[in-house]
């Protein structure tokens, strides 16, 4: 049977014939032939993920990092919830103890890379321009430059956005969601795609709680409903409150 039209012709014979007056070729390797409009619609079963290209790049990244014993955290949050400040303090605390590397993404500027430099870890800034998330291909391009020198922990600071970054696997070991106390307790319920896929959530800016109506128990309730079993840290990178547990956790990851 012809695989293109199922018209019963075996693919090895050479002839031209027609369906309803339209000639077409069964030359081996010949061009796809044409049927009249009545049966010119070809339904193609595809079953291909729209993220297949990204997923292939992510799988390469994952393999590359696993071969080197690197644990990679894909850090995702709203803009301004404290990703860079947390990384500044984290790098300072891990300096000389665990070899770290950082890839940081923003639409524009290298401000974050500049803030993170000089803390004992190589840093690469990715400017995504119009894109609202990092993708696996661009992260993969950076890996040999930033993490091929014995790094044990790679922090990938994604573009500030609670929605799209959650959909793009970068090849990380796991996602970490940040949520600052100024954003409201119910963010996990409002943005479940991220919070349901991040096994770790860090509640940041705890030092601001006295100025807010923030209720940690309510936030934890929403988080538990959205992602039962998620691991939660509550801290202030600014004052250092809660940082010990976070640093101990990271040290444990680096083994």
């Amino acid at each position, binding site marked *: 049977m012809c695989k293109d039209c199922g018209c019963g012709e075996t693919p090895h014979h050479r002839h031209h014939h027609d369906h309803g007056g339209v000639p077409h070729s069964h030359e081996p390797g010949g061009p796809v032939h044409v049927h009249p409009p*009545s049966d010119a619609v070809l339904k*193609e079963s595809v079953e291909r993920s729209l993220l297949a*290209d990204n997923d292939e790049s992510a799988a390469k990244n994952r393999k590359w990092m696993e071969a080197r014993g690197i644990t990679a955290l894909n850090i995702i949050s709203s803009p301004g919830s404290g990703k860079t400040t947390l990384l500044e303090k984290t790098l300072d605390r891990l300096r000389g103890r665990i070899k770290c590397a950082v890839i940081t993404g923003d639409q524009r500027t290298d401000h974050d890379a500049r803030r993170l430099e000089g803390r004992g870890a190589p840093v690469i800034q990715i400017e995504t321009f119009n894109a609202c998330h990092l993708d696996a291909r661009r992260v993969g391009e950076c890996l040999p430059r930033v993490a091929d020198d014995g790094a044990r922990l790679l922090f990938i600071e994604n573009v500030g956005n609670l929605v799209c970054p959650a*959909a793009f696997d970068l090849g990380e070991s796991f996602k970490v969601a940040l949520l600052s106390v100024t954003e409201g307790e119910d963010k996990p319920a409002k943005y479940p795609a991220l919070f349901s*896929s991040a096994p770790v959530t860090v509640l940041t800016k705890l030092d601001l709680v006295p100025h807010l109506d923030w209720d940690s128990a309510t936030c934890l309730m929403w988080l538990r409903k959205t992602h039962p079993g998620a691991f939660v840290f509550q801290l202030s990178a600014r004052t250092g409150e809660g940082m010990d547990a976070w640093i101990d956790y990271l040290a444990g990851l680096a083994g």
Partner: protein
Amino acid sequence: MSLVSELGRIAGEHGGAVVSRVRLRVGTLSGVDPEALRMAFPFAAANTPAAAAALDINIVRATVRCRSCGEQSMPEEPFAPCGGCGSDETEIVDGRDLVIESAELETAAASPDAKPAAHGRS
């Protein structure tokens, strides 16, 4: 954009066909909003083989599996308690898909030896 480029690739495999219809499977946890996708698609697809394609979106609700009783259920999102025993100890097993299920192609370019289109539907 990856939808449009993938459709272009499929169309290219079929000798410059145009895509008349595409069926997607979009999970409610995929991060993609179906209405935003419908709005954006014609702009992304302009001047491509999928420019005139109709978009069918099969929305798939999240399914969770209970770690306590093993039952699979589709809870009211975004919450994920087990529909069987109410336990919070569930894991998401479906609802993240963003997949092209199928595409319908109309082959406009005939094979080189084809006669001019004299085969109108009557």
